[in-house]
């Protein structure tokens, strides 16, 4: 049996598109026949909840009982993948909390798959967080996501600074989310439905659906490239290795 997987989506800044990435990820797993569920930390009302009301629970990360909700249901629900959309600035906080309840330990020993999606903002400031978060999750499943969906400013990275941070997590992989046509993007927001439902619903403009379809396809190819499905379906390799050593 495949072990449960948890994807943390975070950034230390707001407005870099965490929820967008979380949405593409939920669509992706749905399409790959992996039942996902999600936690939205934008308590009390979450954006993710609006798009995926059936699979999303809003949680308050500061509440111990809410923290335990993730933990307790990991093995008891049908969903194999848990996506947690972490509110801006709470990434370190939630990692500390997860560490305290022994959750990160499960990831380290390979009982669950833990992956971190770090959404990068256009300024260099957000890289400071990498060192901090990498300390918690280890460097195995660390993804740096450059989100260009509503590209208004280009990434202004100083390559040297970028590299110096990148080096700290040597296995970190980069994911690029391409730009989506503004009007198509806006229509999906208005519709308040998952991207796949928008693409499938003939009531919306074919051209706008076409743009979303093409864009989503590109995003999924990025996920395919970094082998997300393999990541969650791999058997507890590390357990085996540990047992053997």
């Amino acid at each position, binding site marked *: 049996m495949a072990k449960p997987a948890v994807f943390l989506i975070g950034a230390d800044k707001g407005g870099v598109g965490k929820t967008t990435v979380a949405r593409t990820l939920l669509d992706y797993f749905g399409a790959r026949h992996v039942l996902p569920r999600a936690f939205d930390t934008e308590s009390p009302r979450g954006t993710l909840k609006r798009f995926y009301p059936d699979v999303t629970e809003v949680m308050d990360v500061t509440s111990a009982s809410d923290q335990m909700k993730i933990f307790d249901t990991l093995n008891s629900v049908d969903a194999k993948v848990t996506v947690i959309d972490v509110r801006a600035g709470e990434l370190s906080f939630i990692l500390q909390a997860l560490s305290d309840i022994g959750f990160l330990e499960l990831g380290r020993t390979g009982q669950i798959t833990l992956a971190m999606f770090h959404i990068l903002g256009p300024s260099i400031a957000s890289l400071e967080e990498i060192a901090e978060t990498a300390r918690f999750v280890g460097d195995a499943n660390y993804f740096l996501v450059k989100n260009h969906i509503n590209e208004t400013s280009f990434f202004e990275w100083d390559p040297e600074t970028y590299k110096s941070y990148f080096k700290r997590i040597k296995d970190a992989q980069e994911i690029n989310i391409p730009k989506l*046509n503004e009007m198509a993007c806006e229509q999906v927001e208005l519709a308040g439905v998952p991207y796949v439902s928008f693409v499938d619903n003939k009531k919306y*403009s*074919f*051209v706008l659906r*076409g*743009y979303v379809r*093409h864009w989503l396809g590109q995003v999924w190819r990025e996920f395919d490239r970094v082998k997300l499905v393999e990541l969650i379906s791999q058997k507890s390799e590390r357990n085996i290795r540990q047992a053997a050593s």
Partner: protein
Amino acid sequence: MLLRNSITIVASPRPRVGKTLLARLLTDFHLREGRSVAAFDLNVGNATLAQFLPEHVTQSTINDLKGQMALFDRLIADDGATKIVDLGHAPFEPFFTLAHQFGFAGETHSRGIALVILYLLTPDHTSVEAYRSVSSRLPEAVMAPVHNEIFGVSQHRGRYGLTINAIVIRIPLLAPAMRKYVETPPFSFAELQSPGGDVDIDIELQHWFRQTYLQFRELYLRILLTDLKSSIGF
């Protein structure tokens, strides 16, 4: 699935190979069959098709989102009209790139609309490559090769990998003396009224038009038959 309507795209990556003439013939054919027709002219600058068939043609562009929505959304709209696109050589590649990205062929298929590409065969490498590229990008579309006899007798079947059984639609050579009538707008094969006031010219033109007309009819019958066969699991 039973086909309810059709979208026909007249295409070639080369200029001046007879696309607009073919689009006119096709529009007139559908009008004569009693269908309502909406034609879209993507040629930049010269509105040749619109000059000939002002009531049925919309000048279109795919250079911006507004134009793309006006074209594609209208093409797949369930409004009972048969759609024809006169795709100029310039928007050839952008059009098929968008169509591929949007999943256009799949969408038309799921809506019960036949997607037909009338492709003018020319011997150049670009056209041969483009033919392959379009058929692989839009697998659900029906590729209908067309040979314009004004360019000689060779149909270039070998270059295009067309077998001896593949049907190529031929636009017969029109006597030079007749061309001036056909090429002076307004002129419609569907509403032919002795352009020169001469019965002989009229008969000659009718005869010429009829030859293409029958081939178009055959083409759509073949498509219907293929669809019928697949819907009964034949």
